């Protein structure tokens, strides 16, 4: 008897013709750690929600879901709410109470537990998670990672045997995401909780999980152990899916015919590359340094702090942006990256230092040539259709060639079909594209992006990267704050590392990552200091490696 089972499960949302899930039959054993991946809109979240009765979407459902051999509909609702727990994507929106302690006991109060028992359970849980110092805190003062841990703890307090997670790390920075995923692994190993998780951080989850389900168009495309799934995806030569492969696996599959011991971690990857004999190909490097371009925007000795008592967020910082480049600013949380971007966008005024635009010192409002895309593009939208929003921008800018320009941009970004939708009814990736179009309408010289890849699936990331390359080709300089090393390594020209409110180093992207030990791509960590030529991305390996032999005995 399977623990959790679906039989020919299909689901169609109201007002939709195509089913979101069609004919999915799954059987999950107790204690399994299952990862669901696949492009947005492939039905992953819908499947997860169907398993959680309280929040199951309304619509036409066919097929059966069994939990412990019983139909989901016939199980006592009260018991079921305890047995199957769920953690969602956005750490902020899941919090319902003002203080951490109240948040933790919210579920326990819902199931009518008495005070003594609650106290005992909270004491245990808090001890396990090491969050006793947070109990009296207000939830809005916690960091994103802490919030998500509180959310997890609040669900685990109800002692579920199945934990469903819907992209729980999409909004977290890489360090917090790793911590969170380790916590999940620990729950799975030490308490035998069955895990079903939708996740896009493939490098991090593939080594942790027992089983991967790759979904597409509402069906399960492949299902098996991580290595089997990788192999199947690769064998089917679905190139579009290669962006779903963890980069060590991709590197391996592209350069070996062997195909048995697919590496999932850096450690395994290194073991493998050390068996390779490689003839480095001479690649004509693009030596046109961007730093030889004209400096378009320069900041000198900038100091900034939000309030008098607090220390400087940005501390005597100097940075030069060159015309036509794509610059990435990276660095840990709280080093002032986002603040720097706001200063560049003129949304905050530095207390000290000078800002030069096109060689001229500016004081007061910054020129319209600079546009800024916030982390959450939703806050740019005022009107109830995308068309109205774009028309309004056109009107405000009083553009003479607005119509043509808009048409051009819409076709580049392939957004024509979305114009009459509500901005909130399109996907996150689409909303972001629309926001970029609305910003580009004013023909800016420089585009500032705050973590544009946050929450995007690998496929959408790729699309965004390629679109921004096109934007760059139109002559727009791009400055981006990001946590996403892989993305920065693939597309940007230059990287700057921020530390304690200063720019600690800047270098051309390739040199930048090769010079870093921790802050670099997975592939660079695999190849650094090994016997093969060091590379940063799979793309670079493709260009520079020529395999002449592989010693599988080693």
């Amino acid at each position, binding site marked *: 008897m399977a623990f959790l089972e679906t039989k020919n499960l299909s689901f169609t949302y109201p007002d939709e013709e195509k089913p979101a899930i069609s004919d999915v039959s799954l059987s999950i054993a107790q204690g399994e750690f299952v990862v669901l991946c696949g492009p947005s809109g492939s039905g992953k979240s819908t499947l997860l929600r169907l398993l959680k009765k309280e929040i199951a979407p309304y619509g036409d459902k066919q097929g059966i879901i069994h939990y412990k051999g019983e139909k989901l509909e016939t199980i006592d609702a009260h018991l079921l709410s305890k047995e199957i727990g769920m953690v*969602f994507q956005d750490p902020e*929106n899941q919090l319902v109470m003002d203080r951490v302690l*109240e948040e933790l006991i919210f*579920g326990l*109060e819902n199931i009518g537990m008495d*005070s003594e028992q609650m106290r005992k359970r909270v004491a245990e849980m808090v001890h396990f998670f090491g969050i006793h110092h947070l109990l009296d805190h207000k939830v809005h003062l916690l960091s994103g990672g802490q919030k998500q841990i509180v959310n997890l703890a609040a669900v685990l307090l*109800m002692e579920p045997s199945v934990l469903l997670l819907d992209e729980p790390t999409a909004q977290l920075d890489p360090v917090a995401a790793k911590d969170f995923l380790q916590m999940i692994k620990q729950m799975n190993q030490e308490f035998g909780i069955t895990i079903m998780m939708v996740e896009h951080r493939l490098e991090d989850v593939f080594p942790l999980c027992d089983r991967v389900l790759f979904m597409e168009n509402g069906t399960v495309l492949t299902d098996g152990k991580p290595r089997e799934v990788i192999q199947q995806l690769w064998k089917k030569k679905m190139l579009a899916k290669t962006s779903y492969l963890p980069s060590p696996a991709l590197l391996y599959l592209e350069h070996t015919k062997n195909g048995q011991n697919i590496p999932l971690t850096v450690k395994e990857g290194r073991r493998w590359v050390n068996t390779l004999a490689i003839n480095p190909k001479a690649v004509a490097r693009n030596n046109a340094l961007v730093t030889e371009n004209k400096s378009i925007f320069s900041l000198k000795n900038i100091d900034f702090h939000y309030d008098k008592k607090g220390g400087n967020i940005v501390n005597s910082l100097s940075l030069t942006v060159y015309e036509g480049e794509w610059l990435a600013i990276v660095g840990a949380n709280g080093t002032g990256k986002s603040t720097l971007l706001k200063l560049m966008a003129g949304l905050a005024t530095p207390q000290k230092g000078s800002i030069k635009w096109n060689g001229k010192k500016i004081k007061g409002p910054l020129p319209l040539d600079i546009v800024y895309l916030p982390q959450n593009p939703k*806050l740019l939208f005022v009107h109830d259709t995308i068309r109205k929003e774009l028309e309004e921008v056109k009107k*405000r800018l009083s553009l003479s060639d607005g119509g043509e320009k808009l048409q051009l941009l819409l076709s580049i970004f392939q957004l024509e079909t979305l114009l009459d939708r509500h901005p909130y009814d399109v996907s996150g990736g689409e909303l972001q594209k629309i926001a970029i179009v609305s910003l580009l309408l004013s023909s800016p010289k420089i585009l500032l992006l705050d973590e544009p890849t946050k929450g995007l699936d690998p496929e959408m990331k790729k699309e965004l990267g390629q679109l921004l390359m096109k934007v760059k080709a139109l002559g727009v300089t791009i400055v981006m704050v990001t946590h996403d090393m892989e993305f920065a390594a693939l597309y940007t020209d230059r990287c700057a590392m921020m530390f304690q409110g200063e720019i600690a180093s800047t270098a051309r992207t390739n040199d930048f990552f090769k010079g870093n030990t921790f802050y670099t791509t997975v592939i660079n960590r695999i190849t650094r200091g090994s016997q093969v030529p060091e590379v940063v991305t799979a793309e670079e390996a493709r260009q520079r490696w020529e395999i002449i032999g592989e010693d599988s005995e080693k």
Partner: protein
Amino acid sequence: MMKRGFRSLHPLVCLIYFIAAFTTLMLYQHPFFLVFTIILLLCFHWALDRWRLLRGWGKMFMILPILFFIITPLINHRGNHLLFYLFNNPITLEAIMQGWIHSLSLLAMLLLFMSFNLVITADKFLFLFSRGFPQWSLLIMLSMRFIPLLRRRLNEIITVQKSRGLSTHDGRFRQRIKNGLLLLQILLTWSLEEGIQTADSMAARGYGLQKRSRYIPYKMKLIDGISIIFLLILTILCLFGWWLGDGVLALTPILEPIFLYGREWTFFFLYIVLIGYPLIMEIREQLLWHSWKQKI
């Protein structure tokens, strides 16, 4: 955080005190009573937070009572002790007394509410409230959770939209107001959209399946019980005193002398013990602390 003194009592005791103090304060409109009330409350505030909160509200404490003190004689012309004319307005002794009483009573009331805010913090308030009104208190807690979130979102919207020309700082007055509400409109749409996830997270944790239980972080102790009985007896006695006509300064038809006489002293004493109860608890705490220190 553990608090000592009056604040360590069960929230119910604190609430009873404030209700009793508020009621008697409203009834005893006598300058002599009011002056002592203010002194006691100032001492209590000193014990609570060394007047930190009061300093923040200083201006309001000065302005409002003075305003009342000045305005009342100008518009109230009752009484027979005519003092002088101001712009053809008769100013009477009774009216000045009345103004004095008003401003004292206002001051006392503000002080009492300030100490209420220090003692009955939001979580204690909600704890008390949830006893009778669980649904309302859950709703209040939800809303309290949203306020800092919405405030942060709103500030984000204000900064970002400023760069796109939507601001309440520039332009014509009409346009500025309009822009302000457009900013709120973004916040409304955004927050209601995200709110669906909050509701899902509630449902996912079993909200709405059965009657909720309540986590009780406070326990009734012996001192709490004694305090309640003590406070109730004092309140009843004080109400009785008011019913007898004591503790109210009669202005008309004849102006009563300000100084207390006879029976009024008894009720004055009871009233002072009632109002000063938290201060007594603070002093008791200090004494216990000292005797414990001396023992070791």
